[in-house]
């Protein structure tokens, strides 16, 4: 057990590293998206700034910071300012309970690759995500703009609705692992069965339906295509962030991509065995390989996100609601029942 001082110092270091890595990841996922979508649409994407446009995110960041921060008249100012902060804060906070690897030993201290491991880690993520709704809703309302208001309304309704399907799809995993702690959940997926298939929940726990539900609900939660109704450009200009500009707009942008990453991390942890993967080689490689596997899996998810965005058209709003309530929710409940039977059968 670490002493309090070491714990605090280690935690601070981990926080700083995590935020830096996360923001970088956010920036480069934007780049990745532009690049991939570009190729899907038979374009090049960013190419001018740096090799393959690799410095484009940096340029964008500079642009956001130096642009004029415009506050339109007749907005409800306190909330107008607070809304993007709430959004980005919640998006960044949820990363704090996500483990990206096993324990490592640094300077003789045995430290987990996770900012903090709490008993109710998954609940923390869910709670923080659900608070994040306020950012979108309040942004829409405080802008004093009908498009924004509609976007905010849609966002809050959509996120509250899909949160139920999302939460229920996770319950099957929880039944299998018997814990809310993300680290425990990953540990429960260790090993293989039938000799070679990893005991990931999506395989061994028969959670493919849950995985599918989670994926759908996650797209809706993060307001991504095909569920990006709150910011549907053709109907609502830009939805809840129509009136935002400069750094405030950047915050929403960051929040969206940070949420995508968080959701991808969760999917990896819950269904695909987290950092579990073949580990070999020298000690240093053994320490880093789990992290590599984790990042690789998350990357796959991010790629699928972008791929879907480049491929699928947008839903209509009533289709979206009907899909969530009438299809995903019953399916999630059925999956829950089946999982219960499976667990009861195995024990």
């Amino acid at each position, binding site marked *: 057990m670490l002493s309090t001082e070491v714990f605090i110092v280690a935690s601070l270091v981990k926080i700083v590293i995590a935020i830096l890595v996360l923001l970088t990841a956010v920036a480069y996922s934007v780049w990745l998206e532009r690049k991939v979508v570009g190729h899907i649409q038979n374009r090049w994407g960013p190419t001018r700034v740096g090799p393959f446009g690799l410095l484009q995110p940096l340029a964008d960041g500079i642009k956001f910071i130096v642009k004029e921060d415009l506050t339109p008249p007749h907005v*409800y100012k306190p*909330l107008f300012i607070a809304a993007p902060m709430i959004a980005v804060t919640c998006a960044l906070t949820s990363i704090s309970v996500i483990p990206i690897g096993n324990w490592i030993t640094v300077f003789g201290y045995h430290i987990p690759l996770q900012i903090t491991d*709490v*008993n*109710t880690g998954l*609940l*923390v993520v*869910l*709670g*923080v*995500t*659900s*608070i994040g*709704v*306020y950012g979108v*809703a*309040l942004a*829409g*309302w405080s802008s004093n703009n009908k498009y924004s*208001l509609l976007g*905010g*309304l849609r966002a*809050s*309704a959509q*996120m*509250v609705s899909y*949160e139920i399907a999302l939460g229920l799809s996770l319950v099957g995993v929880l039944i299998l692992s*018997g814990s*809310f702690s993300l680290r425990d959940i990953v540990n429960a997926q260790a090993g293989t069965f039938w000799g070679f298939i990893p005991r990931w929940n999506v395989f061994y726990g028969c959670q493919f339906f849950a995985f599918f539900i989670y994926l759908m609900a996650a797209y809706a939660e993060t307001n991504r295509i095909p569920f990006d109704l709150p910011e549907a450009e053709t109907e609502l200009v830009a939805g809840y962030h129509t009136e935002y500009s400069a750094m405030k707009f950047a915050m929403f942008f960051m929040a969206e991509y940070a949420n995508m990453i968080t959701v991808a991390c969760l999917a990896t942890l819950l269904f695909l065995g987290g950092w579990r993967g073949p580990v070999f080689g020298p000690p240093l490689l053994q320490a880093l390989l789990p992290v590599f596997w984790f990042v690789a899996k998350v990357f796959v998810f991010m790629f699928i996100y972008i791929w879907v965005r480049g491929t699928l058209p947008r839903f209509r709003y009533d289709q979206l609601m009907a899909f969530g309530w009438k299809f995903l929710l019953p399916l999630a409940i059925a999956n829950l029942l089946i999982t219960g039977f499976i667990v009861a059968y195995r024990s």
Partner: protein
Amino acid sequence: MLHLILFLIFGSICVAGAVNLLVQRHPISSALSLVVVMASLAVEYLLLGAEFVAAVQVIIYAGAVMVLFVFVIMLLNAGAEERTQGSRVALLLGVPGVLVGGVLVAWVLLRQSGTQPVALGALPGYPKIIGNLIFHDFLLPFEVTSILILIAIMGAVVLAGQPATQSQPGEER
């Protein structure tokens, strides 16, 4: 000591939020104050060891119920409160009554203080134990509340649903 400090910090945030709820005239500000109250109450629950309660408090109360409130406020486009004087009884009788009652209770409680301190995280409410309790000892109330929820869902659908005669959706805006 840490316990007391944390208690005081979040307790004052709590009270500040509650008072802000009263003072603010716009319902959305009141709603956000209430979210603050709930969030800091969740921290108080954590201090008492009820971590599952705290998580549920955030997810259900702050994340769902209050979102619903905010949603309705946005939907009805509720403006700032009007200062009508509909009831003298409430002001002349009710508020003093509450103050008297509150002060009396506080006085009694504080007279008893110091006798039974509560330790930090005194009673860890792990989800497993709570689940066992709900699904064994409290199964009947649990089922009854599930029926209550079902009825509430149906009631809400009936109440808020469009009357069959109104043909145009969104007409009430």
